[in-house]
Every structure is written in structure tokens, then in C-alpha cells.
């Protein structure tokens, strides 16, 4: 307790602003000031034999590492990680109509628009000049365990302050071009006809297909540590990250309005006052812990499926089920590998 007192006393104090209780902007879709086109549902996720790491960001819970599907095969992955988490190539398909999600296995498949996703990202990016870059990919380090001291700060990942803004409108760095986003986030940010997402340096980059330029940056689990990095009420939300980036599964709840914008960052969806740009509320918490193909992290031994779904998804000797961030996942009890997103419930 004394440790906590000291920490509290020494804590950097947040910018203050009046707390304004406001109604939530539910069900608004991406209306009003939304800066991004609403992405189509049913986008498909490419899996792969990723060599994923156990980065050191979170003290006790597993971290997503580099999710590049082909990195391990190319010898360019970070080489760290959990070999047990490897599995066969998987493609997650979200069936229309009933939110049911099934698994297909294979080398890749077509998405709704005929684009091949999955293993063969050469085709996936065939219209992009990142293809040539990808062939020269040499791998990169993992999460913010590689951040230099002093750069592992809130709201900038490993980037020096101001760097994120500089990247906006620029081409994706070569060593990120082949780096798919970590498995845990692939249901949150789905490639579509307009954008594709890549990962590097603790950030997800949204790249416009029209010009291959970065038009959005999403910091992941900032270097000050997950949970320690929440923006506080009254904080100014960084303009560098201010674009409509609400994870896909929550977009029906949190669409921009004339009064409020909703932004994901540092483990939560924030309600931002459109006029002042400050955090007006924390409307949802997201753990980013589970992803198909990864191992069930520490902390998920306990059955946590919402009541309304327990009749369908009850733990058995053959399958476990765990809830996280809007999805119910199926887990192999023997290997603890997460084998499927079995339902989407928000």
C-alpha cells in the first residue's frame, strides 16, 4: 500500500477539464463527422504461420507480437515467441446474417471483392508498390520492450514525440510493409477495398489503397504499459491519432456525431468532445488479449462467457470458450490454442 501511495504522490498529473456528463452516441453508425468510410462487414482475415512473440509490455499477460503471416517462413520474423502458438493456416470467415463465424483452412481465399487474402499477400498487395518492399523485408523487433528509454511514453509508442504526425501522408516504411497486424487486432481492423492495415513500432498503420499513403495511425498499448496508459478524463486526445478508428465490432455503438467523436487508443474507446478535443468519457474498455492462432494468455482460466450465450458455449473436455472484446473464442483445452472466433456478440 505504501508503494501505491508513493506512486500516487509522484504520479504526473493529468490536464484537467470539467467532466461533462453526456449521453452516449449509440447506434449512430459513422455519421456526422466520421472521417472514414464505413467498412463493409464480412471482411476476411488472413491467417498464417506467424512467429509471434511474447513481448514484454504487459507484466503478466501475453502480448501480441508481430503478426506477419509469412515472416517466420521467410526467416524475417522476430524470432521470439511461443512456438506452441503456431498452427495451421487459418482464414476466419464471418457468415452473413447470424454473426456466426467459422474457420476455413487453406492457403488463402478470396474476400468479398475477389481479392486474395491469407497466405499470398503478394496478390493481396498486387496493386500496391509495397510488393517490392515486402520481398526485401528483413524483420523487426517486437513490441515496446524494444523502445529506447524515454520513448516508451504515453501516446507515442516507440515514436519520438511528433513523429506520428510526420508519418501521416507518407509511404509506409519498408520494414512494415509485410507486417500484418497482430492476430488480436485483426477482427478490429479489417482490410477492405479502401484501406489495408500494417503493424510496426507498436502502431497500426492504415494505408489508403488509392495512393499507398498512411492516412491513419493507431498506437497500441503504449509504452507506459497497458492499463497505465489510459487517457484520463479531460486529457487532450492527440490530434496525430484523431481519425475514426473505433474497432469494427463496436462501430454500431459508437459513431461520430456533431457533438462527439469516438476514438480508440490505449485500451479503450474514448468519447471526445468535438469542440474542445478533450476526452469526455471512456465508453468501452478493450483488452486486446485473444486472437485466433494465439495461446490463451494468463488470466483467462476462468469461464467468462456472457450468460445469454452459455447454453451454446459451455466448456467441455474438448472445447473451452472465452469472451474478449466483443467476440467469443473457442479454445483447445489441451494446447490452450485459440482455434476460432465462434461468435460476435456486440
Amino acid at each position, binding site marked *: 500500500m505504501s508503494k501505491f501511495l508513493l506512486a500516487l504522490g509522484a*504520479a504526473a*498529473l*493529468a490536464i*484537467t477539464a470539467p467532466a461533462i456528463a453526456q449521453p452516449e452516441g449509440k447506434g449512430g453508425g459513422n455519421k456526422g463527422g466520421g472521417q472514414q468510410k464505413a467498412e463493409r462487414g464480412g471482411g476476411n482475415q488472413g491467417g498464417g504461420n506467424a512467429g509471434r512473440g511474447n513481448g514484454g509490455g504487459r507484466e503478466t499477460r501475453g502480448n501480441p507480437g508481430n503478426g506477419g503471416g509469412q515472416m517466420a517462413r521467410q526467416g524475417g520474423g522476430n524470432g521470439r515467441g511461443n512456438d506452441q502458438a503456431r498452427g495451421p493456416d487459418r482464414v476466419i470467415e464471418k457468415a452473413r446474417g447470424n454473426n456466426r463465424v467459422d474457420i476455413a483452412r487453406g492457403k488463402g481465399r478470396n474476400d468479398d471483392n475477389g481479392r486474395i487474402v491469407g497466405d499470398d499477400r503478394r496478390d493481396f498487395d498486387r496493386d500496391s508498390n509495397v510488393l517490392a518492399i515486402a520481398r526485401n523485408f528483413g524483420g523487426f523487433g517486437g513490441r515496446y520492450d524494444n523502445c529506447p528509454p524515454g520513448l516508451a511514453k504515453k501516446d507515442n509508442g516507440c515514436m519520438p514525440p511528433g513523429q506520428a504526425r510526420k508519418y501521416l501522408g507518407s509511404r509506409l516504411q519498408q520494414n512494415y510493409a509485410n507486417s500484418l497486424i497482430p492476430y488480436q487486432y485483426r477482427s478490429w481492423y479489417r482490410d477492405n477495398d479502401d484501406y489495408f492495415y500494417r503493424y510496426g513500432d507498436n502502431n497500426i498503420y492504415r494505408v489508403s489503397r488509392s495512393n499507398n499513403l498512411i492516412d491513419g495511425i493507431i498506437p497500441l498499448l503504449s509504452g507506459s504499459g497497458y492499463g497505465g496508459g489510459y487517457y484520463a478524463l479531460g486529457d487532450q486526445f492527440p490530434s496525430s491519432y484523431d481519425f475514426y478508428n473505433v474497432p469494427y465490432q463496436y462501430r454500431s455503438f459508437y459513431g461520430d456525431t456533431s457533438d462527439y467523436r469516438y476514438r480508440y487508443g490505449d485500451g479503450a474507446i474514448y468519447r471526445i468532445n468535438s469542440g474542445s478535443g478533450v476526452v469526455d468519457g471512456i465508453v468501452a474498455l478493450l483488452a486486446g488479449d485473444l486472437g485466433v492462432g494465439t495461446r490463451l494468455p494468463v*488470466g483467462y482460466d*476462468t469461464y*467468462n462467457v456472457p450468460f445469454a450465450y*452459455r447454453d451454446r458455449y459451455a466448456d467441455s473436455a474438448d472445447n473451452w470458450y472465452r469472451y474478449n472484446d466483443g467476440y467469443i473464442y473457442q479454445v483447445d483445452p489441451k494446447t490452450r490454442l485459440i482455434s476460432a472466433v465462434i461468435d460476435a456478440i456486440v
Partner: protein
Amino acid sequence: MRIAMTLFAASAMTLAACDTQTSDAAAPTSEAAKDAAGDKTIASGLTAEDSKFADAAKASGLDATLAGPGPYTVLVPVNAAFDKLPAGQADTLMKPESRAQLTKVLTGHILPGEILAADIGKAIDIGKGKASLATFGGGTITATKDGDNIVLTDSAGGKASISGSDERRSNGVVHHVDAILIPG
């Protein structure tokens, strides 16, 4: 009046839910589960006995989370738990300049999904005496049994007992704890 929870009581209260995991006995339907949860959210279901936690949630902006879609399991410290903090600390936490710290403390009491006391008890048994629970505070808390009670231990060794459990809400479940857990 808060009733001390026992694992026996918790098991009885959640028998139907447990059965769904182990047998083909009649399971609650989605509608039945919704009915059992009622219309109150975690935020709106907080009572006068939870007033200090409610105030803290509002001060941190997390009241919107607790009124949102969830689902979450929330360990709500009873008012007396705040009184156990060293003199002046609760007041300090409630100051605007301490919001970041307050947010961190409160998120250490919020867990993903809906977890019943019986689920924790079962996990403790499977885990040979302890179970680890992930929180949105970034770390985990460890659950153990002390007789019939469930005891939660934070990363600094602080302990809290569940003093009332399995209060169903439309967006999750609430357990009451008798001390504040401090995230690592």
C-alpha cells in the same frame, strides 16, 4: 444489508449456469438470461452502498463504460473499502489531477466478460488452489479460497474478499469486495 458470500451459496445461486457447462440439463435461453439480468446496467444498478465507487467511476469517466454494452465483471469496492485507504488517499484520488491514477485503480476492478463466483471457484479447483483473472488494469489478480470465501490478491499482495456476489446486470455482473485492489 450485504450478505457474506460463501462458495456454497454462490454455487446454489448459479446452479443453472453451472449446469450448462457440464450437462444437457435445461439451459437458460438468451431471453431467459436477459430477463434474469433485468434492465439495469452496472452503472444504473449501483446503490447508496456503492456511492463511493459510483463517484469514482463518474470522476474517471468510466461511468460511461459501465453503462455501455459490456459485458464486464466488476468488482465493486463497498464504501467501507474506501475508508480503509490511508487517511486522505481517497480524497486525493478523487481530485481532477489524479484522474489517470484513479482510472488505473478502477480498471483493475473490471474484468472482461461475465464471471460468476462459481466460475472462479471452479477455476480455483482446476488450478489446484488458485486462479488468475485478467483485469483491464493491465495485470492479473489471483483468486484463492479461504474456507468458503473467495479471496482476491493484487500484484502487491493486497487482499480483498468477495462479500456479495453474482448481481446480474444487463451488461455484466457485479461482485462486491471489501478492499480496494491496487494494480501493479
